[in-house]
């Protein structure tokens, strides 16, 4: 397993060009082209803002609710799109696995990375919003943003490897997954804040790895640090690091599982 894992860096040229191809191919033929990467998160945000401004009343204790929502929604979109796409990626890429010598793990990795690029392209929109709302940012917390990002990357890769490998054997997974992701979304403090969740369900929320990522992003970007914690890390940092350790574990487990099932792909796809 480690032998294969160490070979991965050798394929970075291939991963790079496949990610580039993925991005190019996605918008080929559409009028706005590449701008969709910016426009999509913006439209998503508009929808949620509309719902919570005109249909349902936004929580009163969160001012600038749209901005709050955006802080959690943007990373969630990366996460959920990666998982949904990677569950199918070995099957749609079956031609490569069956006809070319091709390290199969590249396919889910490319899926996660191209969604990462979309996430990064959404960041300028987020920054514009932060400036527009004049959000108070604590500079000492900002270095934690890339840390959270790397942890999310590992976590997403771990899930993507597991899902892509298992879907080859159980096609049912990709149908179940859509609903699981919807449930998962509502079980994560994205449209509501952690402190608004009822006391008794908080232990369950803590079991959800994405809870800690969402809270961290919100603390860095949205909630101004209180005077006592000013100059320090975001209040959730211990949880985040624990999740980091867990994500490394999940990634290794995912890679192990993928590696064990590797030989079956060419025959089962």
């Amino acid at each position, binding site marked *: 397993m480690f032998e294969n894992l160490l070979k991965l860096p050798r394929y970075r*040229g*291939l991963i790079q*060009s*496949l990610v580039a*191809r993925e991005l*190019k*191919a996605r918008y*080929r*033929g559409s009028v706005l082209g590449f701008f969709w990467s910016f426009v999509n998160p913006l439209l998503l945000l508009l929808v949620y803002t509309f719902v919570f401004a005109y249909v349902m009343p936004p929580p009163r204790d969160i001012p600038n609710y749209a901005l709050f929502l955006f802080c959690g929604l943007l990373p969630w979109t990366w996460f959920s799109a990666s998982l949904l796409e990677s569950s199918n990626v070995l099957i749609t890429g079956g*031609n*490569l*696995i*069956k*006809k*070319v*010598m*091709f390290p199969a793990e590249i396919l889910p990795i490319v899926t996660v990375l191209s969604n990462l690029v979309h996430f990064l392209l959404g960041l300028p929109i987020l920054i514009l919003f932060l400036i527009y709302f004049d959000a108070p940012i604590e500079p000492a917390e900002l270095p934690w943003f890339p840390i959270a990002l790397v942890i999310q990357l590992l976590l997403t890769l771990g899930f993507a490897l597991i899902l892509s490998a*298992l879907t080859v*054997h*159980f096609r049912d997974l990709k149908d179940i997954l859509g609903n699981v992701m919807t449930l998962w979304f509502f079980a994560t403090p994205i449209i509501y804040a952690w402190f608004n969740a009822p006391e008794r369900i908080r232990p369950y929320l803590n079991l959800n790895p994405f809870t800690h990522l969402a809270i961290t992003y919100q603390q860095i970007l949205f909630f101004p640090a209180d005077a006592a914690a000013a100059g320090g890390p975001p209040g959730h940092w211990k949880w985040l690091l624990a999740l980091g350790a867990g994500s490394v574990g999940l990634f290794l487990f995912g890679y192990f*599982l993928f590696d*064990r*099932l590797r*030989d*079956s792909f*060419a*025959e*089962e796809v």
Partner: protein
Amino acid sequence: MNAIELTNVTKVYRKYARRKQFATLKSALLKGSLIQDLQPEETFPALQGVSFGVPAGRTCGVIGRNGSGKSTVLKLVAGITKPTTGTVKVEGRISALIELGAGFHPEISGRENVFINGIMLGLTKREVARRFDEIVEFAELQDFIDAPVKTYSSGMYMRLGFAVAIHVDPDVLLVDEVLAVGDAGFTHKCLDKFGEFKRRGKTILLVTHSLDLVERFCDEALWLDNGRVRGSGDPRRVVGAYLTDVGKSEERELARVEERAQADSAPAADDMRRQDEGRWGSREIEITSVLLKDAQGQTSHIFQSGEPMAIHLGVRAHEPNTDFVFGIGVYNAEGVNCYGTNTHLEDLTAQEIRGEGEVTFAIEALDLVEGTYKLDVAVHKLDGYPYDYHRLLYTFRVKSRSKEVGIYRPRHAWLFTPGIKLKKN
């Protein structure tokens, strides 16, 4: 030293059974094998105990019937699948022409696809850039290289795939029946490219149904039959043995078809012009058996062009009779009457037939081109009233080493004045 070495390789696939997903997943996870937990009747052996080696720099052709395991061998050598048991060793960089353009993305341009495909096949970006012009020129796509691949014709698509794969500069080239990718000109170019590979000391493993190509082009041949090696070594010898075997099984197949045709042929209306096969007539004189025999007097359905053939008719007259004509007709697969004759046309006048006898139509040399032919045999009155008419009930095949076209193959020779030089392949 062998560039490709297979030792006692067995490859077992599982037959597709929907309910066995958990079993296969479990054994794949725990034992690293897909089929461990399956019963023998749920699996299918594609290769059984196959061992062979291809020395570096040699070209080896793999032949065999459909489903004999040729493509599985190629996939194992390419490393796309792993053997169930046994070992596969390959020295050097491999490029597999298994499915051309397998990695192409339809939405992006040919140019971008060349780069990605090249990188997939193991080149670096810089290496692709250096060979790019050569690739495009080889594929003859200079005018279309910036158009999205989805607008390409299938020939253009294949040509581009072939051009990229061949420019990877592999040490070992695996080719799976891809020479049919383009028009004659392109096929020729591919062969030239293979020839160049050979000269440069590369190893080629070629899976093909073109026996002619194996004989002309390969240094050795491997004949697979039902997942086992039936023969290997000198291409001419192996191809010869393979052809003999194919002939035998065709023979069995034709005999079976003929048996069924005769069993099905109920007495039909008195219409001699009907096109479909059948048997009709009053049976006052009956044709009881029809046998085709070769030069050695053996019953056969396969004949070499130019060799003798004899048609033996067993006949029986229930009453002595004086008004009868024997006739035969040969039709090709398109239904064209290649030849027809009868005793009356050849100025033989009937005198008497009594009891049982045999009529032989001996052909000194069967000068027909390769193909499948059907036979009419009949005995009738001079005025056409049928005693026993067998229409298209017998099938034989003519084989030829050369691939001329038409129906008739006259005995001939090519002669040239000294200024015109040709060489025999």
